């Protein structure tokens, strides 16, 4: 998976085709589907891979998983419509050279039809296919909790990404939602939904710690979502993701926000330059993104491009637990 270069024209063509056939970007949900699309079903998936290839020698894994439950209101639909812009934006801005993007949906394992939907890492318009196959739930619990823990578990244990394994650069994971995770990865759910046989439940803290070794993880809380501004949910994610929790006032700026976070992380741009860029192209997203990212740019340390010292070889003497 993950081969092929995105052309924005292909998406435009696909959109035109849909318009011609009358299918919407949410064809799968709108077609009355009630189950996870087989292509997105995590059950029995060994790993989702993001690999280097001749075409994409410096692959960079990016995963965007969003809450598809009713508490989010119209947010999932907006995301489904906006997110196809992400790849093009990254390429156009030069924020990442070989991005490979995975989309997925998060529901509630205690009551939903589609608690976890996970696409593939793609670098062309197939990611758009994944996006349109995501089943929008409209369900969800009312207990302020969704199964984010299962999504984090899957991304920790069931992904293999070259950017990290070959180059020590973490991938980028964005969770978009408005609720908290359950405190444990439950054995029964891992078995039923992913097919993993765990010896025991796993504490959320264990998974978030392991997740952060592989992924630079962000939580985006959009305005307009049900619990937006609720400090309980915010505090929950702040405690786990620190400054990587972003309150987004305008969902239209979601792609710009994600792209700029990646651009900052990849040192393609500084926050000031990025905001100036947005202004240059006449985007009104600038102030929204600026506010959302106020804390991200700070304290990152300077990037120094220099050959690694010749004696900096040999393995780590650590044992990872």
């Amino acid at each position, binding site marked *: 998976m993950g081969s092929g270069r995105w052309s924005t024209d292909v998406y435009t063509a696909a959109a035109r085709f849909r318009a011609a056939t009358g299918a919407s970007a949410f064809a799968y949900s709108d077609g009355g589907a009630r189950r996870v699309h087989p292509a997105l079903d995590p059950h029995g998936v060994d790993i989702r891979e993001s690999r280097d290839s001749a075409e994409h020698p*410096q692959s960079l894994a990016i995963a965007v998983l969003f809450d598809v439950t009713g508490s989010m209101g119209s947010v999932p639909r907006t995301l489904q419509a906006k997110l196809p812009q992400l790849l093009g934006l990254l390429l156009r801005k*030069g924020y990442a050279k070989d991005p490979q993007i995975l989309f997925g949906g998060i529901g509630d394992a205690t009551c939903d039809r589609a608690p976890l939907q996970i696409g593939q890492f793609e670098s062309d318009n197939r990611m758009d296919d994944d996006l349109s196959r995501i089943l929008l739930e409209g369900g969800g619990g009312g207990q302020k909790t969704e199964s984010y823990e299962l999504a984090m578990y899957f991304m920790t244990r069931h992904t293999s990404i070259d950017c*990290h394994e070959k*180059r*020590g*650069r973490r991938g980028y994971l964005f969770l978009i939602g408005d609720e908290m995770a359950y405190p444990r990865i439950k054995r029964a759910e891992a078995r039923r939904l992913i097919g993993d046989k765990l010896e025991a439940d796993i*504490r959320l*803290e*264990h998974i978030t*710690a392991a997740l*952060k*070794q592989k992924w630079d993880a962000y939580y985006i809380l959009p305005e307009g979502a049900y619990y937006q501004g609720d400090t309980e949910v915010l505090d929950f994610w702040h405690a786990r993701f620190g400054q990587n929790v972003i309150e987004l006032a305008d969902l239209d700026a979601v792609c710009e926000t994600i792209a700029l976070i990646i651009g900052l992380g990849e*040192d*393609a*741009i*500084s926050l*000031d*330059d990025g905001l100036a860029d947005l202004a240059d192209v006449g985007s009104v997203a600038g102030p929204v993104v600026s506010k959302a990212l106020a804390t991200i740019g700070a*304290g*990152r*340390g*300077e*990037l*120094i*491009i*220099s*050959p*690694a*010292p010749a*004696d*900096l*070889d*040999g*393995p*780590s*003497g*650590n*044992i*990872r*637990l």
Partner: protein
Amino acid sequence: MTTDEAIALIEAAGDPRALFGSDSSRAYRRLARLTHPDNNPGDHRASSAFAKLAALWQRHTCEPGQCAARGDMANFYLTRRGLRKLARDPADNDLMNREAEALTRLRRGGDKRYLAYVPHLVETERHQDPRSGVKRRANVIGRLDGFYNLAEVHAAFPDGVDPKDAAWMWRRLLVAVGFAHRAGLIHAAVLPEHVMIHPADHGLVLVDWCYTVSEHACPIPAVPGRYRAWYPPEVLTRQVAGPDLDIYLATRCMTYLIGNKTPAPLASFAAGCVLRNPRWRPKDAWQLLSELDELLERLYGPRKFRAFAMPA
């Protein structure tokens, strides 16, 4: 600034400091973006300006420094600003982050009176190797001149350090650990190489905060392989770490240092700190320090300064 202006600036530049000015990384990034070959395909003038820019930037930022030491996971390079610590395996970058976060947290939130017990984080940097694209986090740590780690002290006193001399080290080590705990951090790797002492000043600094976890939760990420056997079993199997772990390891450091010279009362004091069941172990380093003080006074009378020196 246009691409042409950027190229002209770079072509004319001799001294990197003049080119990059005060906000150097921003100036560099801007120039790099404007002249980057991807943005100027086929433009040889731009690509040679870009190459010169890279060379100037390297001169500006990079003092490679001499390798002063090889630790468990990182090499240490001497620079004017301090010791630059670079992880050999970039997969350990997360541990470098942990250290930077911990040292920042101690400096901001810790009790100021005890700051001397932890190293000074001069700066955090990120390095990228231009050929491989490998990125490494680096922490520049203030140098500790005149200090020795406990493994060196042990090597200098293979028959054991006199417990009367070890007393101040033990007391100060508990202070260092108690300081971290008050700030909500568990060091989780209180091992001989990570405890630095200054013999003449009776100074002690607890270094290498890469394995640190916050007090509430979080499994410890890794242990130095050489010291696997030093850890209590529940840490390796369940990955949990509480304040008792730091006290446990600190105690092992001290018994390792004093060796056969450990008098019986001190040995049983130590045994009471390394009990098998974590719930039976002491958790409050400050309270333990007062217990230790009572014991030392019973053994050796009122405290007085004893000069200590490493053998020449």
